[in-house]
């Protein structure tokens, strides 16, 4: 029986990112140009080149990751997804009932689409000549994509952390690297404690908004009397509404930061490959918040041109603070024979925005 907990004597193998903003900028600008002049057809190649660049420049123990997808497969999937999107727009334009039925059908199909998408993405990813794989069933996908989120909503968010934990378990424990399965020991309580912190921040922010607008706009609110027209009431409420909007944006940003720091740490640090390969992720909230925020400002100020540097910067930070720890050799993994899968599900997932990754 292999030990269930990490031994302090494990040998660390740090991840390393070797891409550079300048190099990726040139690749990106060619992608943009060719995508525009081919009316979007080249986007499939652009996607493969971008993903290959980030996988190929991520190294572990002096070996790089590899993205193996064929652009033609991506293009086929993308065309089918776009055709579905057009059909949906057209039908819902002609009849709102048809549109509603299609949305329900789409929800019902989400677990299947998600499983296909994850399988495609995993099988197209390799490290040291061995591919990853995903073997989750549609039934368990239905639980984590439909049932648990629904319970989360019905319980006014109280059960949402469980829903998130179930999704992570589903994602991790159905992943394998060659013949070695991934396992996750992430506990519900660990998810609750991060969400509690988010909840506390939310309370503090909204309290600040209410108190602040009482103090600043106290006159206008206090002076609100029966003879004010609805327009005047609206005008008096405006700063409050704007402040609430800003507060919501701020909280959305905090959630994004938590997902990219605390949740990533939790998922990585409770993940194991085979019997003895562990991960150590040490992303900090402050650093991730700073990178995301300054990236956003840079991208806006350069009308998008800073995007490649922003992407590289985040990849760099993540790689620098992640390592694999083990006592075993990285040379003894065995592959598994898998079929090529189509990219249709993966592309539908992207065009219709289905979440297909836990980290």
């Amino acid at each position, binding site marked *: 029986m292999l030990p269930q907990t990490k031994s302090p004597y494990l040998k660390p193998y740090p991840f390393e990112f070797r891409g550079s903003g300048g*190099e*990726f*900028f*040139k*690749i990106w*600008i*060619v992608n*943009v*140009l060719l*995508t*525009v*002049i081919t*009316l*979007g*057809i080249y*986007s499939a190649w652009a*996607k493969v080149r*971008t993903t*290959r*660049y980030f996988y*190929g*420049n991520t190294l572990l123990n002096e*070996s*790089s990751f*590899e993205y193996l997808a064929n652009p033609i497969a991506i293009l086929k999937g*993308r065309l089918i*997804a*776009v055709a579905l*999107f*057009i059909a949906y*727009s057209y039908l819902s334009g*002609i*009849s*709102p009932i048809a549109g509603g039925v299609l949305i329900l059908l789409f929800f019902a199909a989400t677990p299947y689409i998600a499983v296909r998408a994850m399988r495609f993405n995993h099988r197209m990813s390799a*490290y*040291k*000549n*061995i591919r990853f794989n995903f073997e989750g069933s549609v039934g368990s996908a239905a639980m984590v994509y439909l049932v648990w989120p629904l319970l989360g909503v019905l319980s006014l968010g109280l059960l949402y952390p469980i829903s998130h934990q179930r999704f992570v378990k589903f994602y991790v424990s159905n992943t394998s690297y*060659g013949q070695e399965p991934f396992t996750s020991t992430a506990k519900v309580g660990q998810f609750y404690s991060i969400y509690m912190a988010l909840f506390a921040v939310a309370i503090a922010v909204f309290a600040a908004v209410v108190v602040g607008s009482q103090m600043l706009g106290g006159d206008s609110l206090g002076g609100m009397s029966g003879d004010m027209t609805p*327009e005047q009431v609206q*005008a008096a409420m405006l700063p409050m509404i704007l402040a609430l909007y800003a507060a919501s944006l701020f909280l959305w940003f905090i959630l994004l930061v938590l997902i990219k720091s605390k949740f990533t740490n939790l998922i990585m640090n409770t993940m194991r490959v085979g019997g003895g390969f562990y991960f150590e992720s040490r992303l900090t909230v402050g650093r991730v918040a700073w990178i995301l925020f300054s990236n*956003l400002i840079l*991208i*806006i100020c350069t*009308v*998008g041109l*800073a*995007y490649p540097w*922003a992407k590289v910067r985040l990849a760099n930070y993540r790689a620098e603070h992640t390592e694999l720890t083990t006592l075993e050799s*990285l*040379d*003894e*993994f*065995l*592959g*598994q*024979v898998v079929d090529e899968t189509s990219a249709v599900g993966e*592309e539908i997932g*992207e*065009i219709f925005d289905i979440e297909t990754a836990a980290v």
Partner: protein
Amino acid sequence: MQIHGFYYPAGQSKKSLALLQVDGVLCTLTVEGELLFQAPISDFRISDRLGNMPRQLRFGEGELFETVDNEQVDQLLRGDRKHGFSALLHRLESRAVYILPLLLVAALSLWLLQSWVLPNAARFVAFSLPASELSVIGDHTLSTLDQMLLEPSQLSDEKKQQLRSRFDKLTAEIGSGFVYRLHFRRMPENGANAFALPDGSIVVMDGLVELADNPWEIDSVLLHEIAHVEGRHGLQAAFRDAMMTVMVAMMLGDAISTAQATAALPLLLIENNYSQQVEQQSDDFASDYMLTHNIDTVHFSNMLLKLMASAKSNTSAEEVEDEKEDSSIWGYFSTHPRTEDRVLRIQEKVIRGIEY
């Protein structure tokens, strides 16, 4: 030629030092000193160059030779047609001198796409649909608007009949396959407005009828709406939006970031500019018709000014203040040209008409 790298057996992560020797077209792979594989170069599936990432040469049943010696692999592939495009891509992607031209061409193409390709494609599609096929779209739109916004008209049957017969005269003369129909509706707070649907249905609000002081004023608005139908402006806009959405979905299929959302702002401006052009064309159509039929275009100008005044009286003082600043840059955000400009244009037409 000798290329150093690593060898991985099929389905194993075991990494060994390897050497690929190329003699003409024959490649010999030795792993840790022992001969492993000998085959012509065409038996290897070689990954495309991308930056300075390691290159993968696969052979047999998933065996892999990996090397960082990109230059030598490129040399090996020189003249190979199959890799010609990827070599060209790498050249574009790796030289700093191409950055500025690429950026310019990308910006220019994006602009051309939005301002020329898409509008023309939309026009082509809009005009290739037979007028008779369009009634489905019109009926559906009107019934949706009835549910959501419009109220039944309160005009007398006599008034409606009178307006219909004038409308029929106008359309009989212009008619080009469209079956024109005049509908009467009322807006909440009795707003003055009129709009056209792609199938030739023209909807007039009670407020507009009440605002008009004579029948020619109503005619001028109806002519403007007829021009929208004849020019298939609504259809063109719908197709343009749909094509744009599809293109954006294709281009950004992965990760729509804030960056790309910001980049979409200029496109929005062009969109509104385009709609201003369409309004101008419709104004021209109406004033041309009036000129050739000896109807004084002052009725059209008057109607436009009255519509503007009625729209202003429905907005708060603050908004009117905002509108005063409308003259410069903000005019670009508006879908309609400024009323003053529209009236001026009509007057100019009259002057030119006299000169002829």
